[in-house]
């Protein structure tokens, strides 16, 4: 049975066609459209310090592999898969080099010492303590707002596994937050 193609919005399809020809304007436009999403996920997966480098690497891979995007999934799903793989590869490399799991610095600037900022910092620290595969699934659901089907497609895992990983992610995250003094 042939795999059905997923419709790509016309403007994105046009940009992708330009990228396939190596047109710099199209590449820039694609970066403008999706750079923030890639950067946001990368920062929260690997920390602020190396997120710019990894974001850059994701787009480099994207432009090199753009011919491989066959339209069997949404473009965003393909892009998120590239991003997650690049971030996980980075984390594996960092573990091999005996670095800490994640830099412990908070990603939020503490310009106001209000409760909201404290909660953001706590969540960022707790996320950094979470296993990388649990962190990934939590971020895709709660920050990127993806459905279980989209997450399953991005991570190439069964939909049932998405639910069980989210159970563990949420449970572990609450425990890490309590360890950090969260009283919520």
């Amino acid at each position, binding site marked *: 049975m042939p795999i059905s193609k997923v419709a790509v919005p016309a403007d994105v399809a046009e940009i992708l066609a330009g990228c396939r020809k190596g047109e*710099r304007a199209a590449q820039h436009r694609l970066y403008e459209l999706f750079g923030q999403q890639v*950067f946001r996920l990368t920062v929260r997966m690997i920390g602020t310090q190396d997120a710019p480098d990894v*974001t850059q690497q994701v787009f480099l891979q994207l432009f*090199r592999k753009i011919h491989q995007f066959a339209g069997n999934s949404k473009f965003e799903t393909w892009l998120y898969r590239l991003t997650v793989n690049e971030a996980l590869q980075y984390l594996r490399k960092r573990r091999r080099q005996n670095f800490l799991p994640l830099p412990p610095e908070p990603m939020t600037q503490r310009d106001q010492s209000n409760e909201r900022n404290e*909660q*953001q910092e706590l969540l960022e620290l707790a996320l950094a303590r979470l296993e990388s595969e649990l962190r990934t699934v939590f971020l895709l*659901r709660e920050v990127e707002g993806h459905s*279980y089907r989209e997450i399953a497609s991005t991570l190439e895992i069964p939909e049932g596994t998405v639910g069980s990983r989210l159970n563990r992610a949420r449970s572990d995250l609450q425990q890490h937050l309590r360890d950090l003094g969260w009283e*919520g």
Partner: protein
Amino acid sequence: MNCSEVRDLLSAYYDGELDDDEQAQAGEHLEGCSECRAKLGGYEKLSAMAHALPALTPPDRVWSHLERQLDAEAAEQTAVAQQEKIPHISRTFGLAIALLVTAGIAWIAYQATFPTHADDAEFVAQFDRYLDEFRRDPRAAQQMLVTRYRGQAVNAEEASRQLGYRPTVMRGLPEEYTVESTVVMKMPCCTCVQCVCKRKSGGTIAIFEHDDPEPKWFGDRPRITANCGGTDCQLVELNNEIAASWKHGRRHITVIGLQDLNEVSTLVGWFEKKRPS
């Protein structure tokens, strides 16, 4: 459904991913179970915290570095494509090409001595790519540079023969370092020698000894001049590492991958002591 069954499905229930029947059964259990409801309340709080995380924007340098890398790759592809065309052209226009090559030798020699703007741009992009890769994977970065600039592994005698001088970087290093590889490379600026060294405490540095100063190596990255170990050095910050370059007699030394100013001063002091008078 009992507590255990509901807990297994709690995320899917919370996210509305169960089918109608399961959703209803789990909902029924939750109405009568305060412990499971408390667990669900915890999920809601996590969602609220996650949704309040600030928006993040990538720094401008991500695109500018990416663009340089894309330029370098495009230049490489063009060069390869041109090389592939040569055999076909030479069969057709062999004599004419031979004449052109002969007439062009002087011009090529001139170009080799004074690189063009296109060469400069390509080199800056190439070196930028090397610097980015060096921090992530020094071996991959090294391989890229060696391939691009025809690096040849050398011992001290061979290096002296190719360069016309005995490089200071081959006169030994502080105990903290062990040499992994030494190569001579024909870069557009000059033929230089480069040592890749491992620190005993972890990490890699690359040391270049070269004829000309390195104004192009670091592109438009900001740099400062500082006195390190008694010598004026140009310092460039590279993603929390330091690159240092200084005049070393008639030549220059550039080191990439330094951790802090103490390490810069130690190496500058070491090499300047080793410099032949």
